[in-house]
């Protein structure tokens, strides 16, 4: 029976979620009224087909009066069985499930607090194989695992937005994995925050001629902050991610260190994570090799084992940079390509789409020399090119420097899994977080906006942003 008695809306909801649109324009909305962590009122609105409406009505009836985290355990399979929806209606019922979980995630985002449980561990899930394995390991250890997935913004006009790590399908995959283990899942809709914190600075950085690295901003600050904020609300003391990094506590400060699997090491991406947050985080895969993890996932039949690997700069959705920047309102104007003496060698379609170090696609030559992009002069809309030798740097100035441990010598990395170059960091004395890295050998392809991760052996002891 479709029970319409909970049709309606909670007047001042503690959580609200919507889903729908698509070709049949079905719309579902849930509103939640909480007393503590109990769902005092669950109301649904539906302008939708029978399967969707039946699913929404069943979810409202099932969740009302129960605990928030128990509601977060309700998945599609349970809805189909409970509301007697035929398999052909699964796609429709999913709209109701999506709206329901959006409302639960919103309740958590708005500050709903769940009573704490020392056995509870939050697992940050991307929908991929690594976090899936962390989840199964956490469950196997006897913990109550709460999966948390962030719904982030992706350019809807990108060629394959589903390749992004935080696409709707990835959120559903993570949710399904949790529900298969009977565990709750919380999806936090951070699309607006993500745009403001990660995408907009990325676009602005390019517009200013920099080469920002959004993944370090996202991992290093945005995602860790966002998840850490809700961990305590979800009644957990610790949380885990599937990053291939290790933690080393040095003088009471947790430092990010390289993962055992050198080919998958992600420590560079976490260079900017606040050490205070790291006191609560565990990286169970840091001591493992990815190939072993994948093997084990395949043996366990984890659907995520075959999922598309997300790529760097997820929100580009598999597309090229220049069209993305143009869709974000960055004007691409043709201009000159010049050498360091100002001699014009050709024209470009828009200086902002070029990256220092880039060699391909320039279409200019000077004698027999191979020319690389040396820098972008954004105000002059000019691409400056030169020989590869001119890209070599021994001095790199940094801003926003964070020092976790004082060491005399460092190994500097300016890109993910780049070969480190030994040197030393000299901090500015004015206390503004600026400084200079002096390198013993040449470093290549360093562009303003990139993150500099400074290692002491395997540990990241300092980090900053390349200023020039």
């Amino acid at each position, binding site marked *: 029976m*479709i029970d319409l008695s909970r049709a309606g809306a909670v007047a001042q909801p503690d959580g609200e979620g919507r889903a729908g649109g698509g070709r049949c324009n079905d719309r579902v*909305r849930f509103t939640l009224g909480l007393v503590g962590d109990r769902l005092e009122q669950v109301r649904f609105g*539906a302008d939708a*087909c029978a*399967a969707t409406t039946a699913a929404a009505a069943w979810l409202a009836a099932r969740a009302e009066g129960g605990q928030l985290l128990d509601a977060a355990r309700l998945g599609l399979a349970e809805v189909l069985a409970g509301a007697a929806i035929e398999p052909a*209606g699964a*796609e429709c019922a999913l709209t109701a499930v999506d709206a329901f979980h959006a409302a639960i995630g919103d309740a958590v985002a708005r500050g709903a607090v769940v009573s704490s449980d020392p056995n509870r561990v939050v697992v940050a899930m991307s929908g991929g194989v690594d976090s899936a394995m962390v989840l199964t390991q956490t469950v196997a250890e006897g913990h109550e695992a709460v999966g948390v997935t962030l719904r982030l913004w992706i350019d809807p006009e990108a060629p394959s937005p589903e390749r992004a790590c935080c696409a709707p399908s990835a959120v559903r995959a993570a949710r399904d994995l949790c529900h298969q283990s009977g565990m709750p899942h919380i999806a936090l809709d951070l699309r607006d925050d993500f745009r403001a914190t990660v995408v907009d600075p990325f676009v602005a950085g390019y517009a200013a001629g920099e080469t920002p690295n959004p993944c370090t901003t996202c991992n290093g600050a945005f995602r860790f902050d966002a998840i850490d904020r809700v961990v305590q609300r979800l009644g957990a003391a610790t949380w885990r991610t599937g990053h291939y990094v290790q933690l080393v506590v040095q003088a009471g400060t947790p430092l990010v260190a390289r993962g055992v699997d050198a080919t998958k090491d992600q420590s560079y991406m976490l260079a900017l994570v606040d050490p205070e947050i790291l006191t609560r985080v565990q990286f169970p895969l840091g001591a493992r090799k990815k190939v072993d993890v994948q093997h084990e996932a395949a043996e366990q039949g984890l659907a995520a084992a075959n999922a598309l690997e997300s790529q760097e700069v997820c929100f580009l959705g598999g597309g090229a940079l220049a069209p993305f920047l143009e869709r974000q309102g960055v004007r691409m104007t043709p201009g000159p390509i010049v050498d360091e003496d100002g001699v014009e060698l050709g024209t470009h379609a828009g200086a902002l789409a070029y990256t220092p170090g880039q060699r391909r696609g320039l279409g200019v030559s000077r004698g027999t020399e191979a020319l690389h992009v040396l820098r972008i002069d954004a105000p002059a809309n000019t691409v400056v090119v030169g020989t590869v030798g001119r890209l070599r740097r021994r001095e790199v100035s940094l801003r926003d420097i964070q020092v976790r441990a004082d060491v005399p010598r460092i190994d500097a990395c300016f890109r993910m899994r780049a070969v480190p170059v030994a040197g030393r960091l000299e901090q500015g004395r004015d206390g503004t977080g600026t400084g200079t890295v002096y390198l013993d050998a040449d470093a290549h392809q360093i562009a303003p906006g990139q993150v500099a991760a400074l290692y002491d052996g395997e540990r990241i002891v300092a980090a900053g942003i390349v200023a020039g």
Partner: protein
Amino acid sequence: MGPRLSWHHPKPVVLGGGPTCISRFDGRWVTAGWNISATRSEAAATPRLCVRCDNARVIYLDHAATAPPDPRVVEAMLPHLTERFGNPSEPHALGRQARADLDAAREEIASLVGAKPADVVLTGGGTEADNLAVLGRAQGQPGRMVVSAIEHPAVRRTAEVLARRGWEIALAPVLPNGRIDLIELWDLVQTGDALVCVMGASNVTGVVQPIADIAAICAEHAVPLHVDHVQTAAGAELELSELPGRVTIALAAHKLGGPRGVGAVIGSGVESLDPIVFGGGQEGGLRSGTEDVAGAVALAAALRIRQGAEAPAERSQRAALRDDLEARLGLSVVGAEVERLPGHALLLTGYRGDTVVRLFDERGIAISAGSACASGETLPDVTLTAMDIDDDAARSAIRITLGPTTTAADIDAVVAVWTELAPALQVAAEASA
């Protein structure tokens, strides 16, 4: 002595949560809906709902989908499923008996629709009848056909097959009221066209087409006309003799209280059709296969009820019940301004049609939706799209179709359920925004 059947069990038998009917029939147990079982427990294990019984769980208001079997039709065909089983092509007594039964049925079918017995081609159902009438005209090199924009898939899909084979298919548009645009049709039809196809009454809207005018247009251009009367026959008088030109019609017994798998192509146009089924050359070579005498008898019996002397009174009674229903529901009625089949109502609810249908179903009332939800996509019916009804309105359509067995109490029940549902649906829809 032949088998005896009592349609209603005197007392309802409770089966799995609700009362239904089980009848004794010739020493066996029969549930309403014609499940014949050796034992009562077996019959009880396959419960069917009795659509006529006061104790039935279901109020059946989906007569346009299929009509409940009329016991008179069932009774008429039963001897031909049992002792009068001969093959009409055989010369022995049983065969001759079957031939005589078949001829009698054919004559009655012909006379009830105003045709000659030789112009009756029995088929295995309405879809096959439409296929024969369309594909049977696709003779020789690909040419041109005019097909209305609101045809049943039995015609529409068949025309699409011809289009893929190189035929030009011209779509005849309808007016917003659901009737064929006769001025457009006049312009569309060209001398030399292989066929014009227009359904007699829409299975979706119930709107009745001006077939006499359409036949006149076709006759003027000397183009054969096929009329899909599968829906029409249950609620309007058919009189083929008054139509000019080469006309064929399609019928299906199950819409009239007869069995599935029995249909016919009838009319003066059949003689110029090519067969689409080949074999023993039965039905004048147009439909090979051993004749279904029981089916022919059933079609004759069903037509006798729906086209006979008592039919007009029953139709006006049905129309009055429908009008009462529409007035009390107060919903937007599709095709209200033109002639519709009696007892046929297509209503725009403002909410998703299939959701409304399910809610009625849960309350024991069987109706249908104007559009079907298929794998995550609710496609508006082509008929409603052709009438310029927007997609959201089309998705909200429900079809309530009454039959000869429908009572005023059934209408009261629909009104009561809708009175209960409408406010809740409104709350749900408003809260979705």
